[in-house]
């Protein structure tokens, strides 16, 4: 989560007993093979980015009823490569007010840190690679998930330093917004993961995947899954939470002053971060590289072994990538204060409450709240679990009822009847009428200097607004 957390938890994990070690078996993995795997993951990520940028532009194009890039290569597939070459051959200006070292360093941080989290993502189970049986995962540790959170925080420095060092107003605004956004949503994201840890009993990614061999955590931790999906969009500064770039207000946000490959690093970083959060989401909630339940049962788990895992993992990851693109194509950006309010006043308390609920349900499952149990379809469920779930449902319904009632009362109180007539210049500047409202013809010689001054523009506006209610 933060550097603080990495120090607090990440480092001493070496001292944990052997039972706490990750499930993945790295005993047959020499150092050179680890490096080869790192190279494989690296190339996999770069290729994925090439495809996803094309994919995004094509899909957004379709959503907006235009073809999207279709010139370079089949279906325009090489468009991203062409863009990369173009970026590379562009001039690399650095504004005269910018901090010389930090300006470059910031883009390097963004371009470097985005790759690191993927080191702990299991792309597949045990595979045969150059004669060694090894998990298709660069490394795993008992604090792997924590590590990805810590690295995401370091990546945020890339954005913050970019805004600070540009020596320009818009980037500074964008960077401040972005860091506030990232830290606010990181809390909800971290808390959403707690439910997964309670069920898995580990923070190692391979163990979490292994523990999901019966039930994917999207079912017992469904609300966490929803929260994670919301926060991952906030964390990556993507639409509808793209306030850090805020094209309509801040030009390009934190990267306004960047050009050429230094900008390319931010572009790359954004997409790789999307892959990272999507991969984490698949790993933590959708069973990681394991085949979907129906397919997993075929032929004694034939599709659930070796390199097949890479296919399932990629499919699951792309499901979220599609979701990102879909959001971008269909939703407008939300206002910054609404975004922050949603994060602090809804996501955080709701996640904390949910963590307690999960703790109770899990506690009941483990028999902390009593041993009596009943069975449905051959599976045993503790009675206490039924109690907890019932109680929580009742509580949630009660809260929802109060909330809806309150909102209705508020809406009643705020109901504003529009008068039948409107003077469009009453406030000094033209206001369009609501449907069904009649315009009052303003007096020609007004004492209002503003209206008289802007006479030609005002005339056209008045004619247009007069047309509107009739049609």
């Amino acid at each position, binding site marked *: 989560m933060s550097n603080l957390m990495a120090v607090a938890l990440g480092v001493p994990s070496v001292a944990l007993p052997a039972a706490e070690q990750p499930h993945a078996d790295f005993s047959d993995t020499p150092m050179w093979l680890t490096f080869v795997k790192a190279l494989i993951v690296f190339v996999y990520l770069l290729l994925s980015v090439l495809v996803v940028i094309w994919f995004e532009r094509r899909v957004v194009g379709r959503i907006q009823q235009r073809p999207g890039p279709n010139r370079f290569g089949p279906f325009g597939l090489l468009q991203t490569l062409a863009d990369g070459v173009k970026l590379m051959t562009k001039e690399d200006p650095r504004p005269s007010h910018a901090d010389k070292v930090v300006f470059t360093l910031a883009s390097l941080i963004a371009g470097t840190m985005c790759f690191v989290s993927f080191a702990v993502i299991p792309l597949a189970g045990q595979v045969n690679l150059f004669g060694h049986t090894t998990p298709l995962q660069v490394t795993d540790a008992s604090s792997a998930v*924590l590590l990805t959170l810590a690295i995401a925080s370091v990546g945020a420095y890339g954005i913050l330093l970019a805004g600070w060092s540009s020596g320009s107003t*818009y980037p500074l605004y964008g960077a401040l917004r972005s860091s506030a956004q990232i830290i*606010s949503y990181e809390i909800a994201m971290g808390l959403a993961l707690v439910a997964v840890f309670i069920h898995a009993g580990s923070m190692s990614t391979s163990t979490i995947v292994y523990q999901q061999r019966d039930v994917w955590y999207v079912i017992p931790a469904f609300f966490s899954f929803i929260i994670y999906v919301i926060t991952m969009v906030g964390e990556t500064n993507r639409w509808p939470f793209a306030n850090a770039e805020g094209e309509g207000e801040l030009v390009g946000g934190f990267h306004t002053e960047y050009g050429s490959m230094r900008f390319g690093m931010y572009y790359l970083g954004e997409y790789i971060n999307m892959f990272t959060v999507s991969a984490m989401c698949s790993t933590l909630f959708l069973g990681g590289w394991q085949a979907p339940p129906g397919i997993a049962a075929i032929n004694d788990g034939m599709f659930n072994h070796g390199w097949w895992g890479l296919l399932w993992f990629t499919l699951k990851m792309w499901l979220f990538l599609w979701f990102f693109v879909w959001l971008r194509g269909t939703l407008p950006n939300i206002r910054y204060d609404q975004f922050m309010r949603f994060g602090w006043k809804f996501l955080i308390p709701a996640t904390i409450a949910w963590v307690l609920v999960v703790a109770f349900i899990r506690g009941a499952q483990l028999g902390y709240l009593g041993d009596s149990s009943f069975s449905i379809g051959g599976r045993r469920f503790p009675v206490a679990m039924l109690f907890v779930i019932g109680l929580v449902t009742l509580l949630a319904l009660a809260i929802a009822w109060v909330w809806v009632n309150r909102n209705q009362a508020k809406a009643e109180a705020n109901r504003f009847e529009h008068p039948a007539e409107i003077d469009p210049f009453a406030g000094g500047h033209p206001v369009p009428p609501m449907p069904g409202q009649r315009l009052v013809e303003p007096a020609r010689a007004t004492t209002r200097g503003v209206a008289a001054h802007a006479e030609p523009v005002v005339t056209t506006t008045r004619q247009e607004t007069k047309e509107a209610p009739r049609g």
Partner: protein
Amino acid sequence: MLNNPYVPILFMLALGFAFAAGSVGASVLIGPKRYNKAKMLPYECGIQPTPRPEGGGRVPIKYYLTAMLFIIFDVESIFLFPFAVAFNKLGLFALVEMILFVATVFIAYAYVWRRGGLDWV
């Protein structure tokens, strides 16, 4: 040292850095360099750039408040993580402890909310 699970992360770090530094360096070498005074000014859609205040200027207090609140809740999740990982072995006592802990943090949260610390407008 060689069996340390954190060493391979350095591989990824090195690969990422080599790629980032390589491509930025290449673009510096390949790209044209045509100096133009206006081009080097801060970009504000073509108008004269806002003069920068001495010492970086002032930043709305909201951001500092958010940063401080972040630390409170970050520490909360730090304590929740080991609790969650060891939950299977801890028993009812830990569950009760954790409820007390969350309730304590919730008091701080309610206070901040009541004092308007979470309002952005």
